[in-house]
């Protein structure tokens, strides 16, 4: 996990049906932790949402065969149940609960060990890749995290 680069997913553990499971570890040090908070580093809630959104995004990309890029459109029922500090192993899961026309809805949650960290319902718009460079970067990142790609 590299917070400054918004690389929130380290590796894909499984992809089955409508569900994906990924793992990530919060960094030991980061400028983010210097400000949030001095002397008491905590993973910001917005970055936990981003982690869930990216996990759901990889799921949607895998399910649509990398034909359309998902963009976060709405976050509902986000609940932050426990704090996360530096060096924490995170297990993130996302399930697509609806495949709409030009959008998808997923539920996602983050756990650390046996502790439930947060959960939310996410809506993602899907649209053709707006730039070839973006599609290439997404495919490259997918390979790096172990998400199998269509040809």
């Amino acid at each position, binding site marked *: 996990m590299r917070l400054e680069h918004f690389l929130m997913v380290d590796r894909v553990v499984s992809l089955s049906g409508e569900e994906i499971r990924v793992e990530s570890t919060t960094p030991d040090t980061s400028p983010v932790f210097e400000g949030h908070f001095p002397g008491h580093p905590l993973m910001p809630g917005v970055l936990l949402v981003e982690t869930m959104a990216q996990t759901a995004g990889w799921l949607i990309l895998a399910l649509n065969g990398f034909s359309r890029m998902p963009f976060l459109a*709405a976050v509902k029922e986000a609940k932050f149940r426990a704090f996360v500090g530096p060096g924490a192993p995170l297990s993130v899961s996302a399930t697509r609960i609806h495949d709409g026309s030009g959008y998808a809805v997923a539920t996602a949650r983050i756990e650390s060990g046996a502790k439930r960290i947060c959960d939310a319902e996410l809506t993602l718009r899907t649209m053709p890749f707006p730039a070839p460079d973006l599609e290439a970067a997404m495919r490259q990142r997918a390979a790096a995290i172990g998400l199998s790609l269509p040809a």
Partner: protein
Amino acid sequence: MSSAFDRIADIIAENSEVKREDISPDSHVINDLGIDSLDFLDIVFAIDKEFGIKVPVEQWTQEVNAGKAPAEQYFVMKNLAARIEELVAAKGQG
């Protein structure tokens, strides 16, 4: 069972700031009711769930943008209700 129009109007009132009494069969969802694209996503999601269908919004939008269909055909309430009823009927036959 309520009509498709009533069910859709209820959904719009629940998922936006539009009052139920302001929604008529001749209301244009965007021009008259002022539904923005994000609220419209919520509304379409609720319609998909309520009727067990997948509203082909992208196809409709493409047809309108390409000049192949007037926007009123899909986005005036009475016509939207008719399109939804057609989708439900087609699903029943499928």
